[in-house]
């Protein structure tokens, strides 16, 4: 095999390898998906966050507008504090916006759903969402149902 053919073969090999890596990065992983480039931060405290995780989506009307940046526990008020980053394009959320933790489908991932209120003021960077609704814990609900059913039967 000539030198030239050999080098061409190696060149094709390396190009194929890089193309495969590129495909994995662009087509398979979430690189091309939603990512907050320039955003502002909001905090909200919940009694119970259920299965919410860092990087979980923040949605308004089902549209993804940001993601959870950090989750902390406030041992003074016994509440979970969730920090989320919201894209700058959506900077006109009323200040009495409500935040709740919902589940996508019956067994899907959990996300923060925002429901806008009617206030004239807008939420600014670092603001806190006061109206919150904790995650629904399925076991608790089933437990309550069973318990109520049993006490009614007496």
């Amino acid at each position: 095999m000539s030198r030239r053919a050999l080098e061409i073969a190696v060149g094709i090999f390396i190009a194929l390898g890089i193309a495969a890596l590129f495909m994995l990065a662009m087509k398979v992983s979430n690189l091309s998906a939603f990512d907050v480039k320039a955003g502002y931060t909001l905090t909200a405290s919940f009694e119970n966050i259920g299965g919410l995780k860092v990087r979980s989506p923040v949605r308004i009307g089902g549209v993804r507008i940001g993601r959870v940046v950090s989750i902390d526990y406030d041992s003074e008020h016994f509440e979970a504090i969730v920090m989320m980053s919201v894209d700058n394009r959506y900077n006109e959320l009323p200040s009495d916006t409500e935040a709740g933790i919902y589940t996508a489908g019956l067994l899907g991932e959990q996300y923060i759903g925002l429901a806008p209120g009617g206030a004239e003021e807008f939420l600014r960077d670092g603001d806190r969402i006061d109206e919150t609704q904790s995650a629904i814990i399925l076991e608790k609900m089933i437990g309550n149902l069973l318990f109520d059913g049993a006490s009614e039967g007496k």
Partner: protein
Amino acid sequence: MFLEKIQKLGRLGLTFFERIGRASFFLMQLLAGLPGLVVHFRLVVQQLYSIGVLSLAIILVSGATVGMVLGLQMYNTLIDFGAEESLGPTVALSLVRELGPVLSALLFSGRAGSAVTAEIGLMKATDQLSVMEMMAVDPIKRVAAPRFLAGLISLPLLTAMFSAVGILGSFFVGVGMLGVDDGAFWSQMQSKVDLHGDIYNGVIKSIAFGFVASWIAVFEGYDAVPTTEGVSRATTRTVVHTAFAVLGLDFVLTALMYGEE
């Protein structure tokens, strides 16, 4: 009688650590020989061809087959839960995180590592290495280092191709033949597979495996008993030791990367 057993065990231990020591010393010489390859990159290109390009066929065919089989099996399980859309993320995660790096490394050691060992072992058996030394050419720099570097470059590239082709194979089976929704297949995959957590870790794994597999292949050849039988044993050892090392290392790396989740 009892003492003999103990003595045998002791000898085994000593041989083991002696080999580890020699292999480590050899590795240092090998790494010291790498900078010199910048000038003689020609040697590496030659090895990239015989180690990388010639492994393409087996890697691509295996990748596609593994992806197709995964797609078929996962579909049969997932359809019971009505969750056949999860086929994309399931296949992609298992390929990118585990199967891609490990299977590529095992195939690589069978296809390329054994050949490198046999080649260097035969060079040693036919005194070509001694001749080089007599001509003041360092055989580690001239023979071992280019093969090591070529293996180190090739395996991560081959692994990426394995995973990519595997995902395409499962796409072909899942979407093309079994009727999983095209959009859900990709969008679920993209929402579950993380660039840093999954793809990068897979690449790091394949680099680690490439390092170990090439090191073992080159060392076994260089350390082979210079007889026909010695070379054949060294070749076998390359494949067996690489398999052990890769599987063990994979467990450690997986525990380090995903253990905290």
